[in-house]
């Protein structure tokens, strides 16, 4: 099915933004079951790094590979293994929580029942409510639920804990450990390093 085992590699990555070099010569390799926590001050390039890892942005120098293929030239099969969750929720506010989840589920050809996921996210009572009536934390949970239903192998999470309460934060941290245990890979950029550090295999400090 795939030529190479699941691994995310960067080779001498160099990132510029607005005429400023944020970092250069970034090399790391993540194998199945490994989690990288990306930390650093505001504006140090965490978001840019994650967008480059997803293939949406191009690096000024160096490259990123997934299963040995360049990240922005993946075939559909490998592309489907990647889930990215950025600062924006990606939810349609005219749709209900359930409709949003169903949409992303259908986009990745999944058909599992959603009750247990909704319960885990404590969104059960709100599942038929339009997203525009939800609080910021509830939206965040719904967005992370949408990321979860894709059953991707590689998670790229940019500040997943923003707006989450302690229960939500520990849920996400347990998701990440679970994901790693089942052979997944995750790169998580965060300011709440303490909440997630126990899940990390390596730490990237920009």
């Amino acid at each position, binding site marked *: 099915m795939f030529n190479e085992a699941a691994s995310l590699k960067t080779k001498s990555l160099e990132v510029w933004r607005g005429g400023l070099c944020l970092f250069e010569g970034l090399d790391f390799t993540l194998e199945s079951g490994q989690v990288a926590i990306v930390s650093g001050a505001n504006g140090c390039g965490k978001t840019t790094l994650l967008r480059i890892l997803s293939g949406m942005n191009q690096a000024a120098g160096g490259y990123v590979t997934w299963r040995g293929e360049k990240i922005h030239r993946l075939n559909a099969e490998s592309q489907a293994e*990647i889930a*990215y969750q950025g600062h*924006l929720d*990606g*939810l349609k*506010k005219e749709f209900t929580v359930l409709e949003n989840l169903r949409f992303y589920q259908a986009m*990745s050809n999944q058909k599992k029942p959603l009750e247990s996921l909704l319960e885990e996210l404590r969104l059960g009572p709100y599942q038929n409510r339009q997203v525009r009536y939800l609080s910021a934390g509830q939206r965040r949970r719904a967005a992370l639920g949408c990321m979860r239903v894709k059953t991707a192998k590689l998670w790229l999470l940019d500040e997943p804990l923003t707006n989450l309460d302690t229960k939500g934060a520990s849920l996400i941290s347990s998701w990440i450990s679970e994901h790693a245990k089942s052979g997944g890979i995750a790169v998580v950029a965060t300011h709440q390093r303490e909440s997630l550090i126990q899940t990390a295999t390596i730490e990237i400090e920009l």
Partner: protein
Amino acid sequence: MDIFILILLRDLRLSFRRWNELAMPLLFFIIIASLFPLASSPEISQLRDYGGAVIWISALLSSLLALDGLFRVDAQDGSMEQLILSPTPLGVIVLAKIIAHWIVSGVPLVIASPLLALSFYLPLEALPVFILAIALATPILSVLAAIGAALTVSLRGGGALIGLLMLPMMVPVLIFGTWATDAAVQGENPIGALLLLASLAILSISLGPLAAAGAVKVAME
């Protein structure tokens, strides 16, 4: 193919949940067209002379009004990132969005245009050609709208810029559309103009989505 239908249905459902925005282009179309008899003379012979041109210009302007939200809303709420990173080629997704856009903004124009044509006293026998011309032109306008919307998706005040950018590109549609309408009104053969419109429609539907997809990808970086 499944994903194509999924996106198409999603966009249609979203449009119907924002139905107040949905009705806007159609109302705009009818209002611009009905301003002309007020500003100029309402005599039948004159209405018939400029009626075709007025309806075509109104169609062009109202299609500009509808296009701003095509990609902007998706870009602002983050759905566009998810669509770009989905395994489905972005061109297919954009084509589905364009068709959804045409169904909610183009088809109402096609349905309303014979009514407007009759109120401008265009002869009944010219109507089939006129409706066909509008039906061929609205998909072209939707594709052009999509390219304009894609180019300006990351700009804050993109709306006005789209007008400046896209109106010149819509000129061929205007020329061939009014040519077909005039020919039909005067009882001449409109087939040449209709064929040109049809070929423009095919060209834009086949290449436009790829151009728009490329522009969206660059804009989202």
